[in-house]
């Protein structure tokens, strides 16, 4: 299908967006709103949020909009932090799996981002403002993630990237790297959970050797610099120049090993796709042995069986609310998973792994009230501040606090209520979704949708 034509048509239909983008210098005030801050300020029954330069500059019950501010009257509405999806494959052009090798730590999701993906807009319409865009689960050690903001329509994929977010990487355990469910023809190592363990240990043993080469080299460079003598640019120690220090030879750069070295140095977050309790424990053991930390277990459907172990390691758990039985390793998945992990001290988020489910994360959170009696306050954290913590972006997003990014969702009613829907979504203080304008722009048969609701 001619994608560019449909894209252009879609853009034309949503031309209102350009006019809705508010100038960065002006103050925007969201007034008369019930504000769920997801901070120590709790819920403000009726208050105002001031936004300037894409940041929240003021929030409270007694805040007044300055003269000249662009006012968004949110009377009767509920303002929350923009939702954060800790497991997404959105806006990736083409496939998300570089499947051909058992370790693909060198490939980068950020190289394949499509800022015009219509699903970004559709997720904005569900209040989502940030996402952890992950490589697929084909490999025990997969590619590098991209933490993005849903700035739909920016000219380049680079402009989607969440500035300051630490880099991450996808690991995958169990059936997917085993390729259990992917046709009977082509086999590829590993074919067992034993092989998955070997693959990861082996890669990290290599990475440690690689790191040592570079550490030795860096030390030699420092020593040479410290000695004060001239350093030769020659390639061998026997180069002419009599008496001066030979320049240490740099090891060969290896992009795959670089990514693993960053993990060992604590600079790259490991997001480990996992299902069964045994494989979760396995990875914790390997991580402890190799000296790295797992930032999040993703899916982690049997996390409830080893919640203490996950908490002790300090890993977060990012799970589905209730999906189960779609494959063997999901057969023991229970909707109480989030509640049990949370009660054992794990920082829990609820993710989508789906452009469709991402649009109703607020209701995914609500399910934890039913399943396990999580308080509404804690439940809502699972789609806001908790995923922000897991992605180490909580100093910018995940709650409504002065100084944080103005990434906000405005709901029709409480985000858990059955009649709720997102009316407006802001990213960096800009209105990127406005339902009233979206509906008003509909023509033809699209205008009949909902029976003129």
């Amino acid at each position, binding site marked *: 299908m001619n994608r560019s034509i449909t894209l252009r048509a879609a853009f034309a239909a949503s031309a209102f967006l350009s006019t809705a983008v508010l100038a960065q210098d002006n103050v925007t005030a969201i007034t008369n709103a019930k504000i769920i801050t997801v901070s120590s300020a709790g819920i403000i029954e009726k208050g105002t949020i001031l936004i300037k330069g894409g940041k929240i500059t003021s929030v409270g019950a007694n805040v007044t909009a300055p003269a000249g501010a662009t006012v968004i009257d949110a009377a009767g509405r509920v303002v929350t932090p923009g939702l954060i999806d800790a497991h997404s494959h959105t806006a990736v052009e083409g496939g998300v799996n570089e499947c051909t090798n058992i370790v693909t730590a060198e490939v980068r999701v950020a190289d394949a981002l499509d800022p015009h993906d219509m699903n970004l807009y559709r997720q904005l319409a569900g209040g989502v403002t940030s996402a952890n865009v992950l490589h697929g689960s084909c490999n025990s050690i997969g590619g590098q993630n991209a933490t993005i903001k849903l700035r739909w329509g920016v000219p380049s994929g680079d402009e989607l990237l969440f500035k300051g977010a630490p880099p991450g990487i996808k690991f995958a355990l169990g059936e997917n790297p085993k390729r259990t469910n992917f046709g*009977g023809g082509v086999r590829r190592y590993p074919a067992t959970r034993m092989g998955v363990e070997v693959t990861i240990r082996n890669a990290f043993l290599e990475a440690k050797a690689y790191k040592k080469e570079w550490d030795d080299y860096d030390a030699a460079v420092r020593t040479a610099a410290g000695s004060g003598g001239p350093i030769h640019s020659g390639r061998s120690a026997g180069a002419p120049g009599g008496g001066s220090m030979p320049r240490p030879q740099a090891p060969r750069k290896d992009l795959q090993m670089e990514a693993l070295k960053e993990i060992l140095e604590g600079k790259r977050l490991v997001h480990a796709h996992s299902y069964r309790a045994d494989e979760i424990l396995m990875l914790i053991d390997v991580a402890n042995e190799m000296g790295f930390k797992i930032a999040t277990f993703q899916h982690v459907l049997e996390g409830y069986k080893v919640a203490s172990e996950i908490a002790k390691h300090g890993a977060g758990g990012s799970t589905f609310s209730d999906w189960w039985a779609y494959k063997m390793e999901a057969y023991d998945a229970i909707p109480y998973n989030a509640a049990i992990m949370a009660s054992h001290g794990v920082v829990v988020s609820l993710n989508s792994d789906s452009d469709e489910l991402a649009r109703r994360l607020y209701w995914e959170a609500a399910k934890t009230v039913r399943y396990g009696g999580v308080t509404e306050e804690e439940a809502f954290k699972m789609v806001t501040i908790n995923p922000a913590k897991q992605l180490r972006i909580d100093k910018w997003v995940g709650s409504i606090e002065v100084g944080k990014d103005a990434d906000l969702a405005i709901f029709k009613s409480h985000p858990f209520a059955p009649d709720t829907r997102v009316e407006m979504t802001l990213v960096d203080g800009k209105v990127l979704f406005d339902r009233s304008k979206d509906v008003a722009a509909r023509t033809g048969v699209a205008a009949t949708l909902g029976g003129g609701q």
Partner: protein
Amino acid sequence: MKINRTVAMALSAVLALGFVSDTSAADVPLVITGARVVTISGPVMENASIIIQNGKITSVGTGLTAPAGAKIIDGTGKTVYPGLFDGLTTLGLVEIGQGALGTVDTAELGDVNPHAKTWVAIQPDSELISVARAFGITTALSAPGGGLIAGQSAVIRTMGDTPLAMTVKAPVAMHMRYPTGAPVLDFSQGIPNIEPKTFEQRLQERKKNQEKELLKLHGLLEEARAFGDGMASGVSLKVDLPNEALAAAASGKLKVVMRANSEADIKGAIKFSNDNKLKMIIAGGAEAWRCTEELKKSDIPVLIGVDQLPSREGDPYDAAYANAATLNKAGVRFAIVTDDASNSRNLPFEAAMAFAFGLPREAALRAITLSPAEIFGVAGMLGSIETGKAATLIMTNGDILDHRTSITNVIIDGRETSLDNKHQRLYEKYKARP
């Protein structure tokens, strides 16, 4: 081998009318007292009682007297709804969708399987069934998939020790897929080689395939009608299970559930239905909101899912969410379905999304209770809380459309069913593990 004439007649009679399995009645009368009763068929009753005897609702209202020896269920602060009816599932036919083919009995091989019947392959002890029941799904259409003609579905109750005991009505419908012309790819041996072609080439190929498949489907129905006529006239016929099975659907005696999603396919299916004088129900119906006039005119009901992405890139973001409201406003009959098994318990949440996007509350509740019962011809016994209907009810601590609500009681045919399920058991086992 020739089929005996009487057997053939009996078979066609069964196919035409369906059979209703006998339900052994519960002997202890139940009375739910002081509850908010959402009857669906009438107004909501506050502080009302429901009297249940021999598996049936014998009265609903206020100021009722409990029969002697009745067990009282205190409904104070609770809400009673008819049991939820998921009008399109594979419940009982699948345990684990991927990687455990031994547990999957949803789709027979080949393109034409009108003689495949789901109610002979239902696993009563499926964990998926007890999970669905514990969260309010009391009734489901257990339907086959795959090929052009997939087979026949049954309405089942999510309770019972044998497939027969679970069966409310069978057959309910013949399940077909409207030909899309899309190539069927075989992934069983890994990713198949796909020949590079232009968009135009693929489109033409698809059109040609679609015409061919449609012709095939027309032909199959014509042949089945002739076979049916033969059976009725009493001539000796060779054993032909597919034609025997298809005859009732081809002659409009048995409903046809036709899977169609795009506007063109839905409109094509409506024409196909009219041309063949079928009693059709559309399943899928992603773009039904674009076909309201045609659906209304031919009075064809639609089984739709709600939690879906729009089917076209330029469609409104909420096309699937507001599909139901559009149909409702236009007077098209519809039910909301999950088209799933393990996620069947999310049925009320799909209705909630339709409610949030314009479908009136009453219509949203109806779409998961009385509407599917009507569409499948079991509204005489199911779908609403009325005297004389089966006592198939759920009680909750709040609004069933609200994700925070819990289901406290599930009563099927007057019997209190266990809410025990795999998930609850694992929860109890691990919640306090240090």
